[in-house]
């Protein structure tokens, strides 16, 4: 219901509010669009489990018809299930009966209302004008009434008709949306107070409550919180009238948000950080007493979240709310609503909001495993749609989002690995289709950020969970094949940034499973630069590899591009060498790359490259000599696997070898460089 009312307000804002809250509109329009798309997803869906099966069937190799692959290519996303649950919390608007004893202070600070209208927006002027118009029309009406007293009767009749008609409609609507709303209000013995809340009253209540959490003022405060949260939802409801000053609004919100958790905990007699106990309490008498309060609090928090638009406030609210996440576990359907809102923030907010909403999601999901599916699907789809375009600005956000998603997927590896297998199956089906036709349009299906980011997601997932789950092992080989396939289908200098990215992914993968892959063969192209356009040296072009898949043609021979290429290649190579720096065959691993590096070092005309190249060459040679010296004194043969494994074991553990240290410094450099870009 609240959502619907929120929509009303939004509609209103769109209609009449020209200048204000642009950002909120933008956000919401995004949201709307997404939900619409999701709705489409639901159509071809059905039950969530069924979908999983369907996906699995789709990814089977037998289904290689063009159509299937086309649908696959068009939607890497998981189908979503979007059934709204009308659940436990929504049957009440959270109004609590109050203790009439509580002190109320008359409004002595009337002046404030005018004063604290700090924010001047387009509405103020409009409001004033309208005020005048109303007055004018009223005068006219009064004249008419004076002239013809009988008209007053007529008008009265008409008005009463109108009201009854409206209420009919209203009640229909309300019944549909939320039967409880009026019912609670009407059935309640103490109708909600319509006294105007003053700053003094609130402070008094706050003091009372902080002294004794069981004080009856808590109920009043929570009602006030409710009114504050729903402020502006109904234009002529009591809540709007009760709140007149911004100060009061602020007071209520901050106090409740910061103190509610402590108050509830003390009411329930549970110490901090003890979630298990809460679950046990569920059926106890104390819970029964406090439950309505908590319900009201959580529900109103949701309203607040859907009303607020500012990232910082949202972050703040979420941080506060996270402490109370445990209570959400009692209300699954509310949690679902919360999660939907949170996923939206997670995807669209700035870093801190995104992170805090993710933490909240994780908190809730770990308590409510049923909601995990929803979050996994939504999170994955949102990741895909938000990673379509990558530029220097959002690259960090995408990275953060991906890491968060991996966290989420790592919560239940068994379940996630099935999803991962589905998605990887889709990726490889697309790849196969492309390799069959090899047309330019088809190549775009793999030559895009969505595809690459999707691979990257699963690479990260595999790396994190490799040790725990065997399913992931089989995933690894197919992901490695996809990476090789992409590199094979997109050859050429222009794709070097992509290639470097793939090489990095491979390095990551191989580091976790300790298999050998000739990563350097992917990037030998980097080491073959010879020619440079002398012309372009004056122009300073900033190339950020991290946000490029393909180099623009005009930059292909530029100095900057080559410099970047070689620096990135040095990173990838050193990562590869670092992986095998303690292996008995390291000298041979390094042989061919070393020849190339030496040649490049001799021939390059870019002065800035001499030093890093020389350093890598020196380090690799040093390590090569080191391993060679060590292996001259051993007596085992290459076919003695266990001895080969234990070769230089101690040195590896200590990690003091110069090459390890060198690699650490290189990766540190890279991180700092990455920071510089953003």
């Amino acid at each position, binding site marked *: 219901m609240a959502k619907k009312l929120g929509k009303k307000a939004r509609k209103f804002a769109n209609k009449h509010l020209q200048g204000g809250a642009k950002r909120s509109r933008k956000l919401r329009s995004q949201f709307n669009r997404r939900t619409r798309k999701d709705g489409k997803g639901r159509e071809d869906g059905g039950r969530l489990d069924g979908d999983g099966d369907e996906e699995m069937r789709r990814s089977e190799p037998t289904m290689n018809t063009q159509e299937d692959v086309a649908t696959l290519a068009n939607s890497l996303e998981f189908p979503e299930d979007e059934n709204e649950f009308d659940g436990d919390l929504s049957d009440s608007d959270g109004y609590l009966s109050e203790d009439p004893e509580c002190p109320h202070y008359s409004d002595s600070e009337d002046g404030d209302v005018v004063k604290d209208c700090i924010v001047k927006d387009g509405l103020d002027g409009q409001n004033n004008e309208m005020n005048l118009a109303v007055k004018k*029309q009223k005068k006219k009406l009064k004249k008419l009434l004076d002239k013809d007293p009988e008209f007053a009767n007529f008008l009265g009749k008409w008005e009463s008709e109108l009201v009854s008609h409206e209420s009919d409609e209203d009640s229909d609507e309300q019944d549909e949306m939320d039967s409880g709303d009026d019912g609670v209000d009407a059935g309640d013995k103490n109708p909600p107070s319509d006294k105007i809340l003053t700053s003094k009253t609130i402070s008094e209540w706050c003091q009372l409550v902080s002294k004794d959490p069981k004080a009856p003022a808590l109920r009043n405060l929570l009602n006030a919180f409710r009114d504050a949260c729903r402020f502006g939802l109904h234009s002529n409801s009591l809540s709007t009238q009760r709140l007149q000053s911004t100060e009061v609004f602020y007071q209520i919100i901050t106090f409740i948000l910061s103190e509610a958790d402590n108050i509830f905990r003390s009411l329930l007699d549970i110490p901090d950080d003890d979630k298990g106990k809460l679950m046990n309490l569920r059926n106890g008498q104390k819970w029964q007493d406090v439950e309505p309060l908590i319900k009201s609090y959580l529900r109103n928090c949701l309203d607040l979240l859907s009303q607020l638009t500012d990232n910082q406030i949202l972050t703040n609210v979420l941080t506060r709310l996270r402490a109370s996440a445990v209570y959400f576990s009692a209300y699954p359907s509310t949690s679902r609503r919360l999660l939907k809102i949170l996923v939206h923030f997670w995807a669209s907010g700035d870093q801190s909001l995104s992170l805090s909403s993710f933490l909240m999601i994780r908190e809730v999901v770990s308590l409510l495993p049923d909601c995990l599916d929803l979050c996994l699907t939504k999170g994955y789809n949102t990741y895909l749609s938000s990673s379509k375009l990558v530029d220097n600005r959002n690259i960090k956000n995408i990275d953060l989002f991906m890491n968060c998603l991996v966290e989420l997927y790592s919560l239940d590896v068994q379940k996630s690995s099935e999803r991962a297998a589905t998605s990887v199956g889709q990726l490889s089906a697309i790849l196969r289709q492309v390799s069959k036709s090899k047309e330019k349009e088809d190549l775009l299906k793999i030559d895009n950020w969505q595809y690459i980011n999707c691979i990257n997601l699963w690479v990260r997932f595999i790396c994190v969970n490799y040790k725990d789950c065997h399913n992931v092992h089989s995933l690894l080989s197919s992901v490695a094949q996809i990476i090789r396939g992409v590199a094979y289908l997109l050859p050429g200098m222009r794709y070097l940034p992509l290639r470097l990215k793939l090489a990095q992914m491979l390095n990551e993968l191989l580091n976790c499973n*300790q298999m050998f892959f000739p990563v350097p063969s992917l990037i030998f192209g980097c080491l073959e630069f010879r020619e440079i356009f002398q012309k372009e040296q004056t122009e300073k072009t900033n190339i950020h590899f991290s946000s490029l898949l393909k180099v623009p043609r005009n930059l292909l021979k530029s100095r900057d591009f080559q410099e970047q290429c070689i620096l990135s290649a040095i990173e990838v190579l050193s990562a590869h060498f670092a992986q095998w720096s303690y292996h008995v065959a390291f000298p041979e691993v390094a042989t061919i790359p070393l020849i190339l590096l030496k040649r490049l070092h001799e021939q390059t005309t870019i002065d800035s490259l001499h030093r890093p190249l020389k350093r890598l060459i020196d380090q690799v040679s040093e390590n090569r000599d080191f391993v060679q010296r060590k292996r001259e004194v051993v007596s085992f043969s290459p076919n003695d696997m266990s001895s080969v494994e234990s070769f230089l074991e101690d040195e590896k553990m200590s990690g003091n070898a110069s090459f390890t240290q060198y690699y650490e410094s290189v990766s540190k450099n890279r991180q700092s460089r990455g920071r510089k870009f953003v």
Partner: protein
Amino acid sequence: MGKSSKKKNKVILAPPLPPELDEDDIVVSDDDVEFVEKNPQQARNLADLDKDAIDGFLKRIADHDDDKVELLYEERERKRRAAEALKPRNGDDIEVDPVDALPVKTLDGKVVYRPAKKARSGDEANGVKSRSEEKGDGATQGSQKEPKGRSSKKEASKLQNLQSPTEVPKENLHSVVLEEVKEELSSDELFEKKKAQLAELGMALLEDPESNIRSLNDLLILCNDMDQKVVKLGIMSLLAVFRDIIPSYRIRQLTEKELAVEVSKEVKKTRYYEYTLIRSYKAYLQKLISLEKQPYFYLVAVRCLCSLLDAAPHFNFRESLLASVVKNLSSSNDVARKLCCEAIRSLFRNEGKHRGEATIEAVRLIAAHVKLHDCQLHPDSIEVCLSLKFDEDLGKDDSKEDKLKPKKNKRYQNRDVAKPSEKKKIKKEMLSKARQEVRADLRAVSFTLDPKEKKMIQRETLAALFETYFRILKHSMNNSRYKATSVFPGGSHPLLAPCLEGLGKFSHLIDLDFMSELIACLKKLSGYTDHQGEIPPDNALSVSERLQCCIVAFKVWRNNLEALNVDLQDFFVQLYNLILEYRPDRDHGEVLADALKTLLWEGKQQDMLRAAAFIKRLATFALSFGSAEAISALITLKHLLQKNTKCRNMLENDAGGGSLSSLVAKYDPEAKDPYLSGALATVLWELSLLQKHYDPSVSGMASNVLSMANLNATQNPVQLSSANPLEAYKDLSMGLELSKPAGKVLTLKCKRKRRSKEFVALSPDVLQKADCTVGEDELREKLQSHFAVLRGISENERLRTELNHTLSSINMYKEYKKQKKQSKKSKTGRKKVTRS
């Protein structure tokens, strides 16, 4: 005239004639007479169908108003199309007799006519077939349109039937209109007319080439038309005609002596026919060659030339035909190039058509062309030579042939004193004459001469071919530092790749005398330098090309029964170095795998030092490149280890390298010379790492090789696969791997189902950031502004409803008044009623 058109109607399967046709015909014939008088030259050529159509149209024009005229125009057009559609079919139908009637020239020069009912000979069938192919599109289209055309004709004739009564009186008017319309003939109609004319001429020629041979001239004249479209059509139809009527023999120029002799009428006729044919053919070729220079006609001309070459490689003027086709072999136009290549290839393949004479000419022309352009041509121009066919035993018994050759030459010389043409031509014409005229003599002398002759042609072809190949090799060698910005693919030596391929293919035919020179060339090309220093870094040849040189050298050597005393050591050195130069994306992995296969896998036993060096290098190579390259290297390595059992010591860590350590104690991985690398002293540690290779087939092979260490020298490990390096490479290459069906991802139970609370992917400092809260003041401000906005909105809404309410209240006043009036009225009305 009416009679003749009627007759022709019968010939071309005209649609069923309407009953009133006779009357119609009479009318038409009058028109015809007029028409013919005005165009006396073309009168003969005007066939019935179109005239019918035109005349019908003209007649009706006289009777109808303008809007109907338009409709009639359309009808005429449809008719015309139908007529055209009929033509090719007709051609086929009527062709049967006249083509059979083609004369056959006997050995003594007499032309014999076959009886008309004789079954078709192979050549004719060919001609028909190729012609129908040539016109294939048009013919099928035409036949599809046919029914429509017929029905429209029927309609037209119905119309005529209706009109016929009114026609006779308006005949005078008709002729006047004819004049006017003729003037109004737009260029389009002219085009249509000429098109029709072309079709008629062509048909007539096909129908009866003997009597209509002079039409060729008319066709040629049409080819000089101003309209380019007409010219295009003209040369295309001439092509069809020539393809059909060119005899299966070559027409010889008559000597004066022969001319002087009195001949029968029939022979005269034949001579005239042949003379006209040859003259027009020559003119046609000249026309084509001149048109070829114009971009608009380029493709059409090339197509015609290729088609002619394909159809008549035996006929006169083959030289000019060949010359222009060969010239276009390296055209920058892809379509033209493909056409020419195909024509030349078919020339090479179907030597029966011209007994190999054209082959040698073509190869010689290609050679000259290559020479002229300094080897800067499109690779296709050399690639066609791969289609050449030679007898396997060609190169062998040349001793006998050498004896025969001068004898033959002498004989030719004796005979051909009289001929004034140049030497090459003499030889060719002689050869043909030898076939035609002296066959009986030859048969009497020996039966074996014929194949020998063939052999000689082949040998000369081969000589020309190898001349070309060597020229390319030399050119590549001399200009290895010269970097041309070539427009053709393949870098600065576009011809080298097909040349090497050709050398590989024909390596068994290379003369032993050339062999050492060839090997030296290849050695130099493969990058070998006498001083064991640097390989010049800007060597213009790519790694693939150099590898190919090695492969070719080995093929040449092996195909000559390995009897040669050629030192191929240098090629091993080259391969040894090239392995390090290989780059996966730049070079073709298949060439490398092929080189490994040719040089190492198929070779005989290597000497130990070299084998060891290769083993070590291949193992290192396998560590740095993809699985396909790795597997081919490992297979080769295994093969070497099997052959050189002593090298198995490298599998074991024998301190100091044992007794086998060579002079060089320290292994140098970058050594240029396999003998100086000191590989024998090393251990194949690479294999232990390759066992961890992500690709199971590579790791399996590595383990397999390692298991050799525990076996005796005579034992061999279990054979994993019998594939050679090239096959193994192809099996594992990425392209093939992607075409295999995807493996199913297994689902197994996990050890630990649920993870505890620790974070796995996010770094702690990122998490710390999440907890930072906003300053209180800022929060206050933001919350307050949020509230203010909300309040503004609700206030606005409240006011708005109030305003609306008030306004509608005011509006209600009007209604109130109205109601009041009504009630008053009704009251008064009621009052009235009550009163009354």
